[in-house]
């Protein structure tokens, strides 16, 4: 009963929020895998990222709340396919950026994109 009430309250709150851009529910496994991949690849060398305690680099922007941002690097729409392509090969997507192409598997890029899009705080 308590759980049901909580869900009702959440649904009511949800009704007050603006309509979400992404309608597909976040794949929580992909989000967790994406965070682990970002930590393993050392993305923190340039980015301060929620959930990763160290390092917290300053070369690139902090990524808290990234999922709520409309654009990637001020150039690309912040959607999963573009984001996965950007984290793998940023210079191809945004010429002139300092962020290099980073060798990673396609699945890792998709997971990292899912994780970044889930960051809403």
């Amino acid at each position: 009963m308590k759980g049901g009430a909580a869900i009702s309250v959440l649904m009511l709150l949800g009704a007050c929020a603006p309509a979400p851009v992404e309608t597909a529910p976040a794949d929580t496994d992909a989000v967790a895998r994406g965070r682990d991949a970002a930590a393993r690849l050392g993305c923190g060398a340039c980015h301060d990222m929620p959930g990763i305690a160290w390092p917290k680099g300053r070369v690139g922007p902090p990524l808290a709340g990234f999922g709520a941002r409309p654009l990637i690097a001020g150039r690309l729409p912040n959607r999963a396919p573009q984001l996965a392509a950007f984290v793998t090969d940023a210079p191809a997507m945004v010429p002139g950026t300092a962020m290099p192409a980073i060798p990673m598997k396609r699945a890792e890029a998709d997971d990292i994109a899912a994780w970044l899009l889930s960051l809403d705080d």
Partner: protein
Amino acid sequence: MTERTLPSEGWPPAVLDPAGPYSEPVTLLAWVLLVGGTVILAIVVGALWIALRGSPRLKTRLGGEKAIWILGFAFPSVVLTGLLVWGLLLTSSLSAARVPVGAMRVKIIGEMWWWRVHYQDGQGRETLRDANELHIPVGQPVLLELEAADVIHSFWVPRLGGKMDMIPGRTNRLLIEADAPGVYKGQCAEYCGGPHALMGFVVVAHTPADFARWQASRLPSQGAGGEGLALFLSSGCAACHTIRGTPARGLAGPDLTHVGSRRTLGAGILPNNPGTMAGWVADSQAIKPANRMPAYHQFSGEELQALTAYMVSLK
């Protein structure tokens, strides 16, 4: 969401997971001391409980002459003498006083907050300089000559051997050996100021055939330098770093001739890929605060790309 740190894989290293003949006795000794110390602590707590809360009969027996002879004299004498003899026998094989003939020799010098690695031939002549990473063949002992350039450091690759201080003005010797090919992480184990906790190390153990291939690959840089090398030379990097085969001859920082082939950056702490390389070059201070390489704020995006691509190509 819990905060977590997943830096370079296997670092900080596991300390109770021996992977060679020079670390197994240390781990066994650690477990025996831990279990033995726990048992003796339980006996002492039990005796204390009797002394405070026990029946008068037990209290009398605990304070009697016989108990004092047995628990106060015989027990510690036997246990401590036994431990001393056993411990010396167990660890006698770790002594670098008896170095096997023909053992590979490497001088490692601790610096704030990284490691110089100087490979030597059988006569103690230097054959190759590298940094922060040591390559060894499996199944044979390697003699490390440990020194320090500034303050006391301590060399420790827990899975391959014991822990040995690096002391300015002294050369301490330590034997390590790996049973199986793999990557074994190390860590400075003596507080040496600033980012001491971020002073890691990597040992890569190869099969003999792979080790020979690795040795043959350690040639001076042949890479097309282009804009990346030009930036390296014009931005001050060469004042501290050497890249053999180029005019870069600096000695204050790690030799970068093969930096692109290292497992890690920043002395064992970050995975090595173009992204971490760019982050380290532009602002290592955010990653390893107070390390001696300054942050470089003068590069454009394209310049940082070119410099990073060049560094990564130094295999």
